[in-house]
């Protein structure tokens, strides 16, 4: 199946965020803070306003005059009023007739800020580390703590306690398209077209941040040139809308690539202390402590810590445990999601640790994992029951592949396994409308395709299977939040799993209605002959045109509305000591295998072969699964080996560009074999499980474990740059 968006994309006709255009449109630029932390004394825009081409320039005091209800959310001011919290935080915005005029004018802003000390290193602001905090610490914005069983006894009775500390780096999403939007304010309607993974989340953010009723905010998604988690909430839209309101003209704001690096909300560094008690070849208890850099995030946002931390126990049965995590505020841009936020990093920790215990015990690392891994009916750390799980089956297949590869690889090569899991976000709900006309089926929904194919292909694949129609008879329609049915967003690997179920339900409703109209039961399918659609059942073969009422024929066809809001999920609250934890919705696993060689004199790692075994439930479209897995592996190789945000001690990002922020290049990517593991159905339509995020998760662990296999040396820090590997090899 060829994706319906490809022809336009290949021909360069697709309108991405940065291509948006309107007659009379103005161009915007932002004034960025020159310091990472400081008290604002003065922001003077008088020279900016007199600069050539400038139409409006706004900063904190102007916001109040532009918003119908005065100020917006005091917790989240659009521009800082008293204090800047991170380097390059936007402190004013400018709209001008051309982009170069806007950017030139931005340099004329006179900004007077008294610098304050900055916090950039999470270990130094948390002196007790790795022990829990004893004194109140103003840097702590989140604290989560859960435990179960008698950990002290497990540790006391253990043959040994294996203790390690791991560190991981900040990584950027690096979508090829930067954030970009176009804002228009007409009467009471604040309208923005934007490159987003979630128009409805942007509407919610704008409504709360600007104090506007949701009905006054209309968000339309543009085609998205990659999101990877970076485009799930509002970022530029408030500035563009306020400028449009001030100027009385449409305003476009798009970040330069350098600004994308500087302002993007990304994964930040993390430190984990992990300790496991071992007796009779099994892990009997585990304690983990985590410090997470949350950037200049708002208080009480503990999603990153509370959601992520239980992943440190792995997809393994460990009934006796304690997890405790602290989110710390630093003078960096706020923490933001990145494809499976933080989980590739935490999987690197837990699965390096498991591998390291197996090696200490001199047992086969795969067998060791298989002795602990979840099966259906087991439960998560917080007591949720695991559904059908293909992880063990994937491990078994990986085990066979390792044997085969070892047989034909040079002796010095190392082989490593990474075991990861994810939870398909089926708890985030959504709705879809179907319209069946005599010639086509239209899927009306609230998302835009972000590149993965989950909308343009995934939703179509669900309708195909539900109705029997070929993809050529199905079209996805796009609109804005004023007219599209609600959906949570394209994130959490949930599009097919959750929104797909809305499509499935609407399809079932269509079938029921057609069955009622034709007096058939239980077997009606649709057929398409290239021109028109027919309803087919035993003894029945009728064109849809004959089954629709005249009104339906005039008004766009027979309609069905499907809603899917996942069932409420519970976990065992009695295990929680402090903070918010989140249930996992639908466990999906992946096992990866990497073959590497390591230059023993320089520490350089080369990945020679790679295999990915994915518990996909049911592959609705194998080509799409393969594409997601390959893309995820490549992205994960970046996290594993080369990608790393570097901050200076003054709090500025030192590598805001693609030369020094090193994405994997095609020449560095090994051949990747992709194996679906089917037969363990998930909660999605027809048993599908999400495949957007899982493929990035096991990669750093697989590579690190392969390095350990090749050299006997373990690297405790991501990424595995040649220098870090050289240190592990004790070369320096």
């Amino acid at each position, binding site marked *: 199946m060829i994706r319906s968006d490809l022809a336009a994309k290949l021909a360069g006709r697709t309108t991405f965020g940065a291509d948006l255009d309107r007659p009379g449109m103005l161009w915007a630029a932002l004034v960025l803070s020159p310091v990472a932390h400081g008290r604002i004394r003065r922001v003077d825009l008088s020279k900016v306003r007199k600069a050539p081409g400038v139409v409006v320039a706004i900063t904190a005091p102007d916001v109040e005059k532009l918003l119908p209800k005065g100020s917006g959310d005091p917790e989240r001011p659009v521009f800082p009023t008293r204090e800047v919290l991170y380097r390059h935080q936007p402190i004013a915005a400018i709209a001008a007739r051309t982009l*170069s005029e806007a950017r*030139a004018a931005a340099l004329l802003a006179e900004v007077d800020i008294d610098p304050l000390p900055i916090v950039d290193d999470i270990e130094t602001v948390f002196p007790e580390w790795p022990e829990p905090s004893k004194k109140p610490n103003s840097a702590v914005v989140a604290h989560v703590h859960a435990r179960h069983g008698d950990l002290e006894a497990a540790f006391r009775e253990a043959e040994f306690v294996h203790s390690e500390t791991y560190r991981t780096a900040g990584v950027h999403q690096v979508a090829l398209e930067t954030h970009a939007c176009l804002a228009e304010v007409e009467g009471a309607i604040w309208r923005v077209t934007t490159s987003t993974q979630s128009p409805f989340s942007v509407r919610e953010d704008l409504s709360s941040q600007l104090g506007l009723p949701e009905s006054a905010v209309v968000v339309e998604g543009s085609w998205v040139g990659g999101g990877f988690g970076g485009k799930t909430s509002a970022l530029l839209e408030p500035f563009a809308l306020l400028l449009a309101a001030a100027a009385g003209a449409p305003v476009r704001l798009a970040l330069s690539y*350098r600004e994308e690096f500087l302002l993007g909300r990304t994964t930040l560094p993390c430190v984990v202390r992990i300790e496991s008690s071992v007796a009779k070849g099994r892990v009997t208890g585990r304690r983990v402590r985590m410090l997470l850099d949350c950037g200049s995030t708002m208080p009480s946002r503990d999603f990153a810590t509370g959601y992520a931390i239980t992943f440190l126990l792995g997809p393994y049965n460990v009934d006796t445990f304690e997890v405790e995590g602290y989110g710390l505020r630093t003078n960096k841009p706020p923490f933001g999601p990145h494809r499976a936020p933080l989980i590739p990093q935490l999987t690197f920790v837990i699965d390096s640790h498991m591998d390291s215990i197996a090696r200490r015990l001199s047992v086969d690392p795969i067998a060791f994992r298989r002795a602990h891994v979840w099966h259906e009916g087991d439960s998560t750390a917080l007591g949720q029951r695991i559904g059908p799980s293909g992880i063990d089956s994937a491990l078994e297949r990986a085990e066979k592949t390792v044997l085969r590869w070892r047989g034909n690889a040079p002796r010095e090569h190392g082989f490593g396994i990474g075991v990861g899991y994810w939870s398909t976000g089926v708890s985030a709900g959504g709705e879809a409308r179907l319209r069946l006309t005599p010639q086509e089926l239209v899927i009306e929904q609230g998302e835009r395709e972000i590149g993965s194919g989950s909308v343009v292909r995934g939703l179509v694949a669900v309708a195909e299977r539900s109705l029997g129609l070929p993809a050529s008879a199905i079209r996805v329609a796009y609109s804005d939040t004023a007219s599209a049915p609600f959906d949570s967003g394209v994130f959490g690997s949930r599009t097919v799993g959750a929104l797909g179920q809305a499509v499935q339900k609407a399809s079932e409703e269509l079938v029921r209605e057609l069955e009622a109209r034709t007096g058939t039961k239980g077997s009606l399918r649709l057929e398409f002959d290239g021109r028109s659609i027919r309803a087919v059942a035993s003894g029945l073969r009728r064109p849809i045109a004959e089954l629709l009422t005249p009104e339906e024929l005039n008004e766009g066809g027979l309609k069905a509305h499907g809603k899917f809001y996942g069932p409420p999920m519970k976990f065992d609250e009695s295990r929680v000591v402090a903070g918010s934890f989140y249930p996992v919705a639908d466990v999906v696993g992946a096992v990866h295998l990497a073959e590497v060689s390591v230059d023993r*004199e*320089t520490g*350089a790692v*080369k990945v020679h072969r790679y295999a990915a075994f994915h518990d996909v439930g049911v592959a609705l479209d194998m080509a799409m699964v393969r594409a997601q897995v390959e893309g995820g592996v490549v992205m994960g190789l970046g996290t594993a*080996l*080369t990608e790393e945000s*570097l901050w200076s001690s003054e709090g500025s990002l*030192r*590598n805001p*560009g693609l*030369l*020094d922020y*090193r994405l*994997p*290049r095609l*020449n*560095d990517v090994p051949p990747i074999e992709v194996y679906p593991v089917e037969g363990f159905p998930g909660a999605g339509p027809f048993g599908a499980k999400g495949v957007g995020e899982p493929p990035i998760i096991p990669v750093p662990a697989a590579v690190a474990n392969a390095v350990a296999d090749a050299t006997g040396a373990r690297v405790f820090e991501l990424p595995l*740059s*040649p*220098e870090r590997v*050289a240190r592990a090899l004790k*070369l*320096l």
Partner: protein
Amino acid sequence: MPFSLSTPKDPAEAFRLLVAGRPGETALLAGGTALLRDLDEGQNHATHLISLRKLPWNRHAWKGEALEIGSTEPLRTLENDPLVRARLPGLHQAIEAVGSVALRHRATLGGNLGRASPASDLIPVLLALEALVNLRSPRGQRVVDIEQFIISSRQTAREPDELIESVSIPRALPSAYVWQRVRPSNDISQVGVAVALGPPPGRWRVALGGVSPRPVRLPEAEEALVSRRPSEAEVELAAQAAARHAPFVTDRRATEGYRRRLVTTLVRRAVRSTAEHRARRAGPKGGR
């Protein structure tokens, strides 16, 4: 940043524009792979660019064993000449190390010298080959030793009215260039080591990139290599001398300590590769 661009058709017109332009506001544009980045990052504030694209310096020529490389020739064309690989393996390896194939279709040797980066992959091998830089100005021509030409990052001995016309490499020499990076392709070298074996009696030359403030020859390492077929012990002494004497610093690409560790390995590899090349060229009997 906005800029205006002129594309002179011959050197005379280029010099007129260059002399008329004000220093700091005018910059020479070859492939642009270094300059556009500098403009973008505010390292260079030029508002007028003079493109060297149409100047007749976009080719190389052999004069016997000597090679003259036009300053505006894309590196990729030079790389594609099989004689470069056969006669100057170190130069060929260094060219292949620069960025990517796409980059080398634009990037030039003139631009690499003009940028004078401490991490340049080409300057070390030019140092080892004792290349000469041919400069031209309305006042005439001038030849400067590469050693004198490179001063510091973004700083050369070029006078404001001069253009780099070409680079001369006096003779074919057994040579090698080896490097280390975080990412193998399209990254900047943490350390680069160029080695060449001079004409009889055969003195070794060792040059380094990834040092501060500019790539350097390393006499201490050269002196350790006394024979044309150096023993393991000599190579080891040279490697240790390089680690001791190289002006490495810590920056965002590598720590000083890692660079010192790397350089020993790279010197060993470069010397061995050069010696092997020489042995191959000398035939089965080998040279003395």
